[in-house]
């Protein structure tokens, strides 16, 4: 093995020197651009976001978020999380060590860094923590799904603590109550523009939009009503509980879409189809052509 490796390492290159140099330049450029071009999270595309100017006077405290979660409509089911003084105390401890540096010791937020959490309610806390989007390394970063930093009991503790500052009850959705076709129509009209028709995700200018393949029904309900990060939110007038259940049902359905045609190649459309046409279809046929035909330097 070692001999083979050493031989590979010292093998004289067949590539002509000028071509090697050009390749090296191109690869180096790509590497530099790739390292330097961090996604410009929080930076605008020509016009600055800026802090919302107030009508004279100092910033109110707390530093309010620009949009707040929509409550569930009257009579709609909500999710209640465990609550107790012990849990709140635990939540308080966790909050001080993990969240207060940005969100403030009294949940008042930090101007220019993080919004106030007073009155957000249980929904956003559960959403951001259970999807691992918070805690966030840099305030201007886009919160992306990752492995949660807290265990479920710890999340419940934080919900209890932050929820004690008031806010709407967390929404919920029951996919079994939803209608798949209604969910597909509602998803197409309201969600597919960002999340792609089969919930495979996408982009907008300066933000990545997640695919929803790991979202639970609870997280879907919370996201729809609160609108995390740059996502708009939808209240019960626009998406009522039945539609919400249906959208959750459809999103869960997209994990196993009906691929009647065979291998679904990720259900994102013509890009993988083109790759298959060239690198499987045409490549196989070129191999067949090579088997049939002669090569140039073979003896006649």
């Amino acid at each position: 093995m070692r001999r083979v490796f050493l031989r590979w390492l010292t093998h004289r290159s067949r590539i002509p020197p000028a071509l090697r140099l050009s390749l090296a330049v191109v690869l180096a450029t790509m590497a530099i651009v790739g390292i330097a071009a961090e996604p410009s999270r929080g930076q605008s595309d020509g016009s600055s976001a800026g802090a919302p100017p107030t009508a004279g006077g100092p910033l109110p405290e707390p530093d309010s978020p620009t949009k707040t979660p929509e409550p569930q409509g009257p009579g709609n089911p909500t999710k209640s999380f465990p609550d107790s003084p012990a849990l709140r105390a635990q939540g308080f401890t966790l909050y001080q060590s993990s969240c207060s540096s940005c969100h403030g010791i009294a949940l008042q937020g930090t101007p220019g860094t993080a919004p106030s959490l007073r009155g957000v309610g249980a929904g956003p806390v559960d959403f951001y923590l259970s999807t691992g989007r918070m805690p966030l390394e840099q305030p201007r970063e886009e919160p992306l799904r990752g492995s949660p930093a807290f265990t479920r009991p710890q999340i419940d503790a934080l919900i209890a603590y932050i929820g004690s500052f008031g806010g709407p009850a967390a929404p919920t959705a029951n996919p079994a109550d939803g209608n798949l076709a209604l969910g597909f129509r509602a998803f197409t009209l309201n969600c597919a523009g960002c999340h792609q028709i089969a919930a495979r995700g996408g982009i907008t200018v300066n933000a990545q939009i997640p695919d929803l393949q790991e979202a639970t029904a609870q997280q879907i309900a919370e996201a729809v009503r609160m609108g995390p990060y740059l996502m708009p939110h939808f209240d019960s007038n626009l998406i009522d509980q039945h539609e919400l259940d249906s959208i959750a049902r459809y999103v869960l359905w997209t994990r196993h879409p009906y691929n009647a045609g065979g291998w679904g190649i990720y259900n994102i459309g013509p890009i993988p189809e083109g790759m298959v046409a060239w690198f499987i279809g045409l490549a196989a046929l070129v191999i067949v052509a090579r088997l049939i035909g002669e090569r140039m330097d073979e003896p006649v």
Partner: protein
Amino acid sequence: MSADDDKPISRLARLLGVLVAARTAARAAANRGHSVPRDAGGTEHPGSGIDPSKRVVPSDRRAEGLVALLLVFAAVFAFAFTVIYVVLSGDTQLLGVAVGGALLSLAAACIVAGKFVVPQETAIEDRGRLLDEEQTGEAVEMIEAGGEGISRRAMLVGAGGVAGAALLTAAATPLASLGPTLKSLHETPWARGVRLVDDQGRPYLADEIQIGSFYTALPENKDPESFGAGLLVVRLPAEFIHLPAPRRDWAPYGILAYSKICPHAGCAISLYRYPTYAPTSEQPAFTCPCHYSTFLPGEGGRLVFGPAGRALPQLPLMIDSGGYLRAAAGFHEDIGPSWWGVHRAQS
């Protein structure tokens, strides 16, 4: 790939793998078996006078056997197709493997036969000439001889040219009846008083329009498929609204309406970003999913990124006595993609 894919796909993948392996092994066996005596052609310089023609008759029993076997495979697959179609009511994957297998087996049979069974010959053929000066000259003379004796040649040719041009123009003229007038390009279903409804026909109350949400609106009792029908409706807090002076009263209570059709290439704009916390992220904007043109609803649909050549057209809104949203007027510019006669915004 999802769990549902695994069962039939892995079944088929295994079947396919067996097929490929069998055929590869078979062909490799045929390659070892036959011997095609090669001429001492070698690597001569082109033009050194070597005659490359030859004829070799393989008479290779193993290759012939392989061809027969492949033909049998083809028969088996073809029969399987019928069975699958009738008995299994046509599962797409199995049908595809059956037909594909039959055709590929036949293909392999033909190729093996064509390379190792039938006589292999290299022949030389002369290309022949294309330009035969004599024939071409005679042909031209024959054509011109058709005009022998004509005295007023110039007049006839001129008249023929005029007739030809006129006939061609006449032939092309019926195309004009294929198209409608261009006036319709400036029309949309929106006019003063038309009520905004959702895709189920339910009218929008101004009170329902929340900040941070976005709504698709259509004109009540009009054709929803019309290009100008779709609207984007949003509500912005005062700090995000900087409309030019003539449009100050187009947005009652901060409710703004824009055409949903992108003025770049006609896609429906369906991305809306609204920040949870403005200081660390972007301001509210629409983005089109096709080429990512981005427009600011708070600034009259101004373009901030992307290829669109003009701003997103805005529709003036009003609230009627019942609290419903209605168009205060039609669009002040054309919606949809630009063209030679498009009416652009004045301000």
